[in-house]
């Protein structure tokens, strides 16, 4: 059996959990899904409507607010009892926080950020990016099962999950020693309300490291004005304070799907790609022909953006 660990917050299922179920279905083994929380509400029934064999619900007061210690204790007990061949997660920030601890405690393999499953059953191998997406690695777990696998967000299609009849929902009793939880979290919060909602923008011109200095962002702004686009950026640009954090696209910023996305000097690290690969038309201009951004681009120009972008702007101003 494969155990999929679904993620919910305040009774709302993280959609990436469906992608983890889709990846589990690729392994062609019976699937049980577990969801943890203080009270998971309707999430269990929602999950039961997928084609899984069983939904396990682990409710405990100590799981009401996420901590890696409580999640590790709870899942360790469930894994020990169920003895799955694989344990799958979506590669969310929460998974990144506890899955390595769980795997380390059980001394079992954890393969993270998986984008593809090759083969099925116990002999399957997994594809994941390495070297910032410049290379793809085919990796196999070493040692005894269960093997822990986290799947990259957006790599498996939630709408490809084969739905079936209503799966039985079973309560499990998480074994947690509340005194052993060392993290004391406050409630999540958002910083000042976002003034720009890039999710609503029809067109976006985004800049990355290749822009080289804050002054050069004017080149992108001019192009954006010519085509009625918002200006956005990859993380390093916002880290440098060249553009405000609210204009950051990627896993730690906003996720967008505009009609047109123009990536200037963006290499295309995975953390950026997950935030924009849903755009309808993607243009990449980059000096490095091997930059991963070209893997998702519809149109690519390899060259000096400081020559190409002004030329493009004046072409587009002509209309």
């Amino acid at each position, binding site marked *: 059996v494969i155990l999929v660990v679904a993620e919910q917050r305040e009774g709302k299922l993280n959609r990436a959990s469906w992608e983890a179920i889709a990846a589990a279905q690729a392994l062609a083994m019976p699937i049980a899904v577990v969801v943890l929380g203080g009270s998971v509400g309707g999430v269990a029934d929602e999950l039961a409507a997928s084609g899984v064999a069983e939904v396990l619900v682990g409710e405990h007061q100590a799981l009401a607010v996420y901590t890696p210690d409580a999640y590790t204790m709870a899942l360790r007990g469930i894994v020990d009892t169920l003895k799955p061949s694989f344990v799958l997660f979506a590669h969310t920030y929460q998974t990144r926080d506890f899955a390595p601890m769980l795997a380390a405690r059980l001394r079992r393999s954890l393969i993270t950020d998986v984008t593809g499953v090759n083969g099925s059953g116990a002999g399957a191998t997994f594809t994941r990016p390495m070297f910032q997406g410049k290379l793809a690695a085919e990796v196999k777990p070493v040692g005894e099962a269960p093997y822990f696998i986290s799947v990259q967000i957006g790599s498996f299609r939630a709408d490809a999950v084969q739905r079936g009849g209503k799966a039985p929902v079973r309560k499990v009793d998480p074994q947690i020693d509340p005194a052993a939880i060392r993290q004391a979290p406050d409630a999540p919060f958002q910083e000042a309300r976002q003034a720009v909602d890039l999710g609503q923008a029809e067109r976006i011109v985004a800049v990355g490291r290749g822009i080289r200095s804050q002054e050069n962002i004017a080149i992108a702004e001019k192009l954006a004005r010519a085509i009625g686009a918002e200006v956005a950026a990859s993380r390093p640009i916002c880290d440098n304070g060249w553009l405000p954090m609210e204009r950051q696209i990627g896993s730690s910023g906003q996720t967008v799907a505009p009609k047109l996305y123009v990536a200037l000097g963006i290499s295309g690290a995975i953390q950026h790609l997950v935030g924009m690969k849903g755009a309808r038309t993607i243009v990449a201009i980059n000096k490095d022909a091997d930059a991963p951004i070209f893997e998702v681009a*519809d149109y690519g120009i390899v060259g000096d953006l400081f020559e190409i972008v002004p030329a493009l702007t004046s072409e587009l101003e002509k209309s």
Partner: protein
Amino acid sequence: MKIAVCIKQVPTREWQPRLRDDKAWIREQDVSYEMNEPDAYALEEALRLREKHGGEVVVCSAGPARVQQVIREALARGADRALHVEDDGLGAADAFVIADALAAAMADEQFDLVLTGLQSDDQGHAQTGVVLAERLGIPHSTIIMEVQVEEGAAGGAGRLRLKRELEGGWFQWIGMPLPALLTIQSGINQLRYATLKGIMAAKKKEIRKVALPAGLQPAQQIVALSMPTRSKQTQMIAGSAAEAAKELARRLREEARAL
């Protein structure tokens, strides 16, 4: 406060990948290396915490002899001394082996705080820090954007107050006892660079070499590396800047209808 910073040496961003003949790893002789960028932010945070609270900053790295380059760099930026678990086999090691190697070298030091970058720019497992915390038997938190230390009364262990980044612009404050391990998010601070004085001083700082413990077990094996497959058929537009710009504008108007 006694602070450890774990640093990895990774290929530079400009590196063009070339594979070894067996495809199971890269051709290392072609590579130039630099400090893993997220680790540079962890180092900077450690130096700032030392400036505020006193103590020392110890650089810890597991890798072949070549990683001395980034250890010296960290010492030049201001770290006090270093531990180097040296072994040729560590260049391509997975997160479990690196964490086990570091844990064996670090256990006796009794660090108050261990910082790492949130992931490496080479293998990118995003596991080493968390596994190391588990091996050292200390609590952890990941993707940290702010570190506040509340010092303990009369020599007692202090507490941390941490701002952790969640997805999509959400954050969370977390309290945690020391000793602890944190993985640091890039952009938490502004990096400093080594001064000439720092570079000179680094030459006299201690780098203690530690042998790799025998029998460490990898948790995964790379079967093969390859160039990633394109998910889309990208139309590459060639020509001079002016020609390419004109052609792109035409295609965006007529073909993609994106304007």
